């Protein structure tokens, strides 16, 4: 057996909307690499009828797409096997968060990209900020759109470079109005909902901040000789493992759990904290739960694992007690709970789960996570 090649490098061109120029800039980078003698192919390219962008593919070999028959229609997907056989040094893959048509080998294009990277092929790819898993709820509250095609944050974290493709919202709106981005009819529809200036401004700020964060976390890996941290800077919680933060998320059947998991993981990532998720049930196999609830809990635990969160099922009767006991035993510093449903607000005489947990938690912080779906209708205090 030959040695495994070193893993390929991944560079992501990050934007905040269709039409900011991600694909264009990616192809420019590919052309530059080609001029420098790198063996480049295009694995997947979505022309969207944009002339300037199509012109940028000139002279770069395209690996033909694979046709897949799904319910009598033909869909075209990236032909990962063909790229592996062709074995280029660098492969251009547009639209990283794309979901493959059923019948494809892998569910998501980002999983195809992992295969290319594993084979030692470098990859350039594109995505918009709204496809980042941990921002899903924020994006929903900003745009009113629930983005289904998401990229887990760890995939972004593993990229070697994240580059911001910036364009001002005004310039983007001009492009849209001139029909550069979409056909006139589609552009009109886009202008009415997603492409509102205030929406674009917030998405752009999210993308700028995320890119800054990606740049920052990569600095930790550098071992540049002679690098001195700023004088006076010290982060006690990080220096001593005993002080390291640990976040624990309570998983239930409630649909807001997905939101809770995303938020908890995002905070954990920013604080460089460990992150766990637990469900509490009388039976370790969850069989005391109604089938629907059990399915939801399992789905949420699975979702957490997909985001690289360690999960556990705790066996017990009293949710608050089990949760806090587990937290104390495992050095958890910070609990994440969902906001109770209005129907679950307890009578004055009874304590809510939140209150029970707060009462028991003592030396731990307890966060009750916002529910952006409530945003439009502020509740009476």
């Amino acid at each position, binding site marked *: 057996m030959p040695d495994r090649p070193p893993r390929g490098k991944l560079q992501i061109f990050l934007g905040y909307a269709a039409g900011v120029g991600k694909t264009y800039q990616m192809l420019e980078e590919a052309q530059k690499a080609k001029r420098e003698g790198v063996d480049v192919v295009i694995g997947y390219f979505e022309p969207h009828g944009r002339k300037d962008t199509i012109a940028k593919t000139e002279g770069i070999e395209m690996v033909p797409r694979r046709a897949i028959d799904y319910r009598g229609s033909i869909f075209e997907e990236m032909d990962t096997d063909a790229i592996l056989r062709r074995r280029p040094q660098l492969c251009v893959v547009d639209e990283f968060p794309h979901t493959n048509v059923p019948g494809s080998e892998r569910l998501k294009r980002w999983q195809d990209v992992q295969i290319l990277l594993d084979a030692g092929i470098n990859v350039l790819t594109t995505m918009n900020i709204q496809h980042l898993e941990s921002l899903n709820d924020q994006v929903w*509250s*900003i745009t009113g759109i629930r983005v289904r095609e998401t990229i887990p944050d760890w995939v972004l974290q593993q990229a070697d*470079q994240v*580059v*911001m493709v*910036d*364009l*001002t919202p*005004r310039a983007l709106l001009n492009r849209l109005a001139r029909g550069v981005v979409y056909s006139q009819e589609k552009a009109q529809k886009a202008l009415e909902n997603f492409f509102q200036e*205030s929406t674009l*401004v*917030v*998405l*752009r*700020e999210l993308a*700028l*901040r995320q*890119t*800054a*964060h990606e*740049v*920052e976390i*990569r*600095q930790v890996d*550098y071992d*540049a*000789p*002679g*690098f001195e941290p*700023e004088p006076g800077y010290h*982060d006690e*919680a990080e220096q001593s493992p005993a002080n390291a933060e640990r976040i624990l998320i309570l998983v239930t059947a409630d649909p807001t759990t997905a939101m809770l998991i995303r*938020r908890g993981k995002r*905070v954990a990532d*920013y*604080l460089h904290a460990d992150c766990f998720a637990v469900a509490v049930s009388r039976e370790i196999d969850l069989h005391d739960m109604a089938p629907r609830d059990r399915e939801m809990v399992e789905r949420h635990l699975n979702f957490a694992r997909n985001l690289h969160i360690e999960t556990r099922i705790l066996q017990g009767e009293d949710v608050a007690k089990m949760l806090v006991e587990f937290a104390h035993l495992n050095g958890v510093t910070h609990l994440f709970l969902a*906001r*109770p449903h209005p129907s679950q*607000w*307890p009578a*004055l005489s009874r304590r*809510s789960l*939140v*209150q029970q947990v*707060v*009462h028991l*938690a*003592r030396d*731990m*912080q*307890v*966060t*009750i996570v*916002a*529910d952006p779906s*409530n*945003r439009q209708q*502020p*509740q009476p*205090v």
Partner: protein
Amino acid sequence: MPSAIRRRSPEELLQQVQAEEAYERRGRLKVFLGYASGVGKSFRMLDEGRRRRERGQDVVVGAIQPKTTPEIEALLSKLEVIPLRQVDGVYVMDAPAILKRRPGVCLVDGLAYDNPPGSKHASRWEDVNDLLDAGISVVTSVNIQYIDDLRERVQRITGKHVTQTVPRSFLNSADEIVVVDAPPETAIAGDTQAGPRVAGPEQKLSELREIALLLAADVVDRQLEGYLQRNGIPQTFGAQERILVAITPRANAAPMIASGKRNADRFHGDLIVVYVRQAEISADDQQALEQNLAIARAAQAKIEILDGQDPIETLLKYAHEHRITQIFVGHSTREQWWERFTGTPLDRLIRGANDIDVRVFPH
């Protein structure tokens, strides 16, 4: 009480109308912001000029860096260039010639350049200001190392001292700001410029890159706030984390503020410490409060002291008006100041916060 939307006086309205008219007459300013020379600011700026010209706008080049690449030469050949003037061997943008030529759009590379002594203005950005006043729109490029309030920070990273500066306020006045981002290798490979530049390990470039991205995010956030206010949109969402730590005299404020500071730093967000004034507190409590406020000041938090009948309602109103994303609150078994009110206060806070995270510190 601060309020997002309030009625304006006739004088204020007149001032606003005059300001709007002046703004209408003034040219538009667009800035390409880079973290080092060689990231491609000049190229992006000229490429924008080319596209505007192709769309029928009257574009001229007012200033370009002395050293260029073949790509930049190719762009320049498609544009009208107003040559630099030579004064005592120094090249200067010919602002009088541009004003005479009166184009719709003027491209100005190197916003931070100094003019030689005896010029009308000491710096090029002041000439640009004149062009804007004359109704000429300007597209320009600048490196973060010249922004006055970032200069020292950048200098600590690069070890290079620069004398030229552009005020942050001028940058904030830009209609549009674009960050020209590229991985550090590009910045090294593409560096053609003779002026002060960054050289050294990737780490340094990476730190500069982060500063540029966050600067752009801050300018964008400021623009968003202005936009929301002008349009009377009481929006609570935002891209930036804003952490509010609610303190009382007896609160164990130190860990809450420390955690708030740590979170705000990590998210590059804001930290605000809020105290809702309580009636008739004892001398001991007053002293405890002073101590807590001192901790907040030491953490460089913004401090707000609010008045209101109902502390929870007051907190929530402030939080919603200031796009707060997380409220930190203490929960002591000893001190339950909220129990004067109906219902369970913590539940009330959580219920009212609804689109804001509530972090409880039991103690």
